[in-house]
C-alpha cells in the first residue's frame, strides 16, 4: 500500500495523474509477466498477447 500512496504523491507532484490508468494497466500486464515466468499461469495469459 505504501508504494501506491508514494506513486500517487509522485504523480500528483509531477502533475502526471494521467499516468495513473496507464500505470495500472501496465502494472497488471507487468505483474502477469512476473508471475507467468516459468509458472503454470503462462498458458492462461497467452491469449492476452
Amino acid at each position: 500500500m505504501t508504494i501506491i500512496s508514494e506513486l500517487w504523491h509522485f504523480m500528483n507532484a509531477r502533475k502526471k495523474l494521467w499516468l495513473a490508468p496507464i500505470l495500472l494497466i501496465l502494472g497488471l500486464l507487468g505483474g502477469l509477466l512476473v508471475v507467468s515466468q516459468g509458472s503454470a499461469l503462462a498458458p492462461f495469459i497467452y491469449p492476452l498477447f
Partner: protein
Amino acid sequence: MYILGISALYHDSAAALLREGQIVAAAQEERFTRKKHDAGFPEQAIDYVLEEAGITLAEVDRVVFYDKPFLKFERLLETYIATAPSGFASFRKAMPVWLREKLFLKSYIVDRLKTREPGFTSARLLFSEHHLSHAASAFYPSPFDEALILTIDGAGEWATTALSLGRGGSIEILKEIHFPHSLGLLYSAFTYYTGFRVNSGEYKLMGLAPYGEPKYADLILEHLIDLKPDGSFRLDQRYFSYASGLTMVNGRFCKLFGQPVRLPEKDPITQFHMDVAASIQAVTEECVLRMTRAAHAEYGIANLCLAGGVALNCVANGKILRDGRFDRVWVQPAAGDAGGALGAAYAAWHGEMGRPRAPGEGGRDAMRGGYLGPVHDDDRIGRDLARLGARFERLDREEMLDRTVEALAAGKAVGWFQGRMEFGPRALGGRSILADPRSQDMQKVLNLKVKYRESFRPFAPSVLAEKAGEWFDLTAESPYMLMVADVTEAHRHEMTPAQTALFGIDKLNVARSDIPAVTHVDYSARIQTVHAETNPLYHALLSRFEALTGCPMVVNTSFNVRGEPIVCTPEDAFRCFMGTGIELLVIGRHILRKEDQDAALKEDYTAKYALD
C-alpha cells in the same frame, strides 16, 4: 555528522562516506566482489567505508541514493507509450525487474541496511537526482568557489546532459537535454556498432580513433545528430533502437554506414572501424566544445567542472582545456556512476542540509589524489603473502625504491601496490602496473603478455608534475589522468615519408618519440601528473627513475587484466602477478621476483575473466 552515499543497481555500484562534509572513504563494489562493473547493492563497499571511519551504520545520520527511481520509471513508461507497440520486447524484459525490485527501491535499501542496523528506517534515507549527484561530485570537491558544471552521460532519470552553476554551497541546474537525445548513448551506439561492449568499451573506441580518419563525421552530422551552434542537439531516433529495443542501433543505421554491426569475437577490426571511431570522436568533441563555448559566452564564468560518463573522454577534455575559454577545468576522477555515490552524499550535506562550503586550501581539490579506498599495512601484507606461499623480501623504503627503479630501467613490468586504493576507473599509482616508457616494444608486451588485451590500446604516462611541461603540451595539472595532450616537438621523432604513409595498426610499429610506449599514433598521451603533496612515495619513485635514466615518467596502467576489476587486496595482486607476465611485484615494502616463486602457484589467468 556522517553521510553515506550509495550508487547501485545499474552499473558501477559504489559507496562513499562524508564526515562533517569531508571525504572519509569511497570505493566501488567491483573491487571487493571481483565482478567488473558490479551493479549489485554495494554491501562490501558500505562495510568498508564504515570500517574506515570506525563507526557503525547507527552513527550515520543520512543515507543518500544517487538517483530517483520513480522519475526513471516515469521515463520508462512514457518511452514505452511513445514507442508502442515496438517496445514490447524491451518492456517485457524491464518490467519484471522494476516490479520486483527497482520500484520498491526505498524498502529494498531499508531492508539491506537493516541487516546492519535493525532499527534503520526510511526517515534517514534520501534520494538525489542523477545529474545533481554528478554535478555535486564535480563541483563540491573541486577547488573552485564558483564554476559552471557540465554533466554528460547516457541517461539519468530524464536528463542526459545538464549545465549547472555552482556557487559556494549551492548548485543551480540551468539547462538540461532529455532522453532519448543523449551524447553518451550516441557514443555508446557506436561502441556497440564497432563490436565493443556498451558501458565498458567506450575507452577502446576512443583509443581506436587516432588510427582512423574522420571520414564519416559529416554523415553523422547530416543524418544522426542535429547539432545546434550552442551544442544542444537532437538525435534522429529512426536510426537507433535503444529507446524501445534491446540493441543500440537498427538496420537503417547499418545501411547508412554500409556494414553490419561487428561481431567482437568473429570479425576483425578493420580500417573502416577505425574511421568510424575517429568520426564519432570528432563529432563528440565538436558537440562538447560547442557546449562549453556557448556556456562560457552566456555566463562568463572562469571555471568549469565536468562529470558524467562522457567526462571520462579525456581526449575531449584536453580539447576543452586547450580551447582556452575557461581558466581552469576540473574533472571528477570518478566521473561515471560510481562517483554519483560521492555526489549524492555531498548534495545532501550542502544542498539538503545547507551546510556552508570552503573550497580546498592552496587551490587543491578535496579528492586527496583520488586515494580514497582500502589500505593495507606492511605487517598484514607480510602475513597475507606468507599465507599465500609467496617468496618475498621486506626492505626499507629507500632500498625498495632503488630495486623498483632498477627493475623498471631493465625493462621489467612491475606490479606496484601502495597505500590507499583509487576511487574511479583509473589507477593512479596505488594499484598500478608500471614500466619503462622509453622502450619501443613495451606497449605490445604489456598489452599481449601482461594485460591480455587488444594490441592497439595505448598506455598512459605518470609524469612528475613539475616536469610535465617539458615533455607534453599540457598547460594545467592532470592528477587524475583525465587530460590528453601531445608530446612536445622536442621529444618527437621525425617520420620518414614511408612511415607517414602507414595506415591503421601498422602505425604502431614506428617509434614516434623518446617515450614510444606512451605516445599514441597521433603523438597524444593521456597524462597523469604526479604531485608530492598527494602521493609522496610515487613522486619519489619517479624522481629516482629520472635520476637514473633522465626520464621523469613511467608507463602506468591499471593493476588487472582485461575484464578483471583493478586489484584491491595483496591477495588479488599476488594472484594477478602469478597469472600474468608481471616480473616484479612491490607491495608496500615487500618485493617479490617472479623467478623466486613456486611455479605450482601459477594459474592460467588468460581465461579467468570474461572479456569486456
